[in-house]
């Protein structure tokens, strides 16, 4: 990144190749929309270009990148708030056909796993944004706790507590949706 800052813009391609998958998944888990996430990834890399002069060499690049990604996500969420109802309806349509009444044990297991994944995704959507974000950073982005602490600007101990609390909150929503009793 230091070289990009100094004007070797071609080096951004290397950063793009290294990080665009993780960023894409970050956005998809945050907003559930692959096409939109595609646009947001582009947006992050072009904010990196535009604001390259403000990059501080002493900080890890990924922390800076995710801070930009969080801002991009926030800006987009503001724009999108009115469209949320529409997205929820689309999700209902995507559930697909019902499973047949009679199934083999294997098919039953697969169906129940599918149902669990669906409920978990729904629970993740219903989770408050800050909790969803910390779960995505810790569970999907392969980031270490000290890196997450740098992104969020807090202590490592606080990250651990927040990850646990977010998991617990997700569990409560999941078990409610599944009609099971939460511990």
């Amino acid at each position: 990144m230091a070289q990009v800052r100094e004007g070797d813009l071609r080096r951004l391609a290397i950063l793009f190749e290294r990080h665009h998958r993780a960023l894409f998944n970050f956005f998809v888990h945050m907003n559930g929309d692959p096409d939109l996430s595609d646009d947001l990834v582009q947006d992050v890399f072009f904010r990196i270009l535009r604001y390259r002069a403000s990059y501080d060499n002493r900080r890890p690049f990924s922390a800076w990148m995710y801070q930009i990604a969080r801002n991009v996500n926030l800006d987009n969420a503001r724009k999108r708030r009115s469209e949320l109802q529409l997205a929820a309806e689309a999700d209902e349509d995507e559930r697909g056909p019902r499973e047949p009444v009679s199934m083999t044990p294997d098919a039953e297991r697969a169906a129940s796993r599918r149902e669990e994944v669906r409920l978990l995704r729904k629970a993740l959507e219903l989770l408050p944004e800050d909790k969803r974000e910390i779960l995505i950073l810790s569970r999907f982005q392969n980031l270490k706790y000290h890196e997450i602490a740098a992104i969020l600007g807090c202590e490592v101990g606080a990250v651990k507590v927040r990850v646990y609390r977010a998991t617990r909150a997700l569990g409560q929503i999941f078990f409610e949706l599944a009609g099971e009793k939460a511990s």
Partner: protein
Amino acid sequence: MKCEDYRALFPEYWEGGLEEEDRAALELHLASCAACRVEADSLARIWQGLGRLPLALRGRDLRRRFYEKLEAYQFGVEESEAGAQRSGLWESWKAWWSRPALQLGVSAAMLAIGFLAGYRVDDRRDSAQLSQLRSEVGNMRQLITLSLLEQQNATDRLRGVTWAYRVEESDTQVLSALLHTINHDSNVNVRLAAVDAMRTFGNSPIARRGLAQAIGKQDSPMVQIALIDMLAELKDFEAAPELESLARDPKTNPEVRERAAWAIARLR
């Protein structure tokens, strides 16, 4: 330590990332505290479930759009920086000549204009001209892709990989150059990009076989996971035996094994 302090260790415990001392202390606590034990069990199911959430597939255009914008941005920056110092036609020509993307764009546009002119002059010649135009543009794309893939500089090779998205699906020369890149390029990012570009050739049995065979040749778990994801995306059922032996091999990186198991489940 209070129960809440122990519970904050759960995620690291499930990930296997706790220090030995903390792990032993947590296990001791779990053995004596029923409430924490119940919570650990129920939340472990949530944590593992999150790991099973399928990753969304990227649009085909993500990489192409990025490189086009980067090229345009870079060109704009360089032009504005150099604008004050040069005004001669020769300098502009040199700047244009150093950029294969722009060369191709302009060449293709000129060919298209030529074609359209020909079309208006003589309708009977249109299908012959169309096929000639296609073949010339195809050849140019192939040439640019192959030459960029052979460059010393990793960034140029990455651009070569991006050009591979524009060649015809039947272009076996680019297909084999991409497979060579996946198996032998020294740069992980170039290899990752080449794996993605293989989507263009997804219908080719040679491409699928090449992808499956490449997994065992990789030293980078990231590239292995990208290959597994691509095989799962292409629904390559014939890759299942390779994936199964990968998932069973204790020498394989644990994340790669987990991803292989996920892909096998997806292919079934």
